[in-house]
């Protein structure tokens, strides 16, 4: 095997699982596995986006009215926060790839977690809590008496379900990042083996992409002119 020459003495680098031919195949398999999961997530969120598309087409004015109840500045700020968190996550993986000290990897991971927590904090405090006080949370606090009430209620259902499920994914992501910080602290990663970081990065970037579409489709319906 030519991999013998490439690895030198390293036929079994740390983290190598013996059912694989070599580390390259193992990494390919784990990447493929995470993408298979992300494809199911595309369809999971896709179901809600499909329903949203149809109801938006059928009740456009209600959706415009509902969308204008949301504040663009918070949606936009959260989008910036998540984009920053994707950068820090990519840099965390790069630190592992280039053999940096574990302290540096942990630094980027914790920064990613702080940004993720900031996203959730902003959402809860300035959007959802305010929506609760204003009475535009269907089923929990509904006191809306403006135009298109049934359609607006439908829109707000979409808003809370879609951003709620997204927020749950963020929380899961924070849990995964915590595990990664612990694994890094225990010296599990090296330039030869950093697959858990890579595939968790795929998950985190995916959740960012979902938010990119949520922001565009929920906050900006019908324009703000």
């Amino acid at each position: 095997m030519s991999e013998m020459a490439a690895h030198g003495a390293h036929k079994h680098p740390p983290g190598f699982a013996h059912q694989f031919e070599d580390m390259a195949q193992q990494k390919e398999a784990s990447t493929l596995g995470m993408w298979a999961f992300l494809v199911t997530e595309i369809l999971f969120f896709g179901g809600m986006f499909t329903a949203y598309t149809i109801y938006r087409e059928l009740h456009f004015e209600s959706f415009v009215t509902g969308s204008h109840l949301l504040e663009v500045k918070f949606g936009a700020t959260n989008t910036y926060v998540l984009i920053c968190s994707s950068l820090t996550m990519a840099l965390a993986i790069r630190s592992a790839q280039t053999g940096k000290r574990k302290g540096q990897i942990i630094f980027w991971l914790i920064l990613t977690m702080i940004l993720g927590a900031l996203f959730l904090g902003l959402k809860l405090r300035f959007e959802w809590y305010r929506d609760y006080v204003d009475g535009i949370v269907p089923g929990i606090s509904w006191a809306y008496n403006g135009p298109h009430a049934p359609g607006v209620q439908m829109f707000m259902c979409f808003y809370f379900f879609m951003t709620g499920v997204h927020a749950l994914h963020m929380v899961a992501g924070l849990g995964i990042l915590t595990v990664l910080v612990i694994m890094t602290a225990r010296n599990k990663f090296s330039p030869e083996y950093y697959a858990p970081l890579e595939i968790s990065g795929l998950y985190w970037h995916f959740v960012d992409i979902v938010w990119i579409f949520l922001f565009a489709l929920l906050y900006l319906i019908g324009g703000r002119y």
Partner: protein
Amino acid sequence: MSEHSGHTGHVVPVSTYLLVFFALMAGTALTTGVAYIDLGRWNTVVALAIAVTKMMLVVLFFMHVKYATGLTRIVILAGFFWLGIMITLSCADELTRTWEINPAGWGGIIPFLLRLF
């Protein structure tokens, strides 16, 4: 099997990451700004076009798909293809519920499609 340099996978330069980061930030600012301009129906098209561009940047560079194998790419494309099936067929069902039998036959599809845009 792998075309990676060595066994660690492709290392993307920090400058590339930063470039993509600033492009994403600019895209977000653009999307937000364009929402305040009246483009009628095109507001949605522009917003989605920017969102898709941002997604491609994240997928290709942050998620390393630019440096990934063909097998990985096919899986990703399949995912979007299935999403397309779900949206297309669901819309085709729901949005044509009120259709009557059209004496014009299949030609009636064209005015409907034109009205969507």
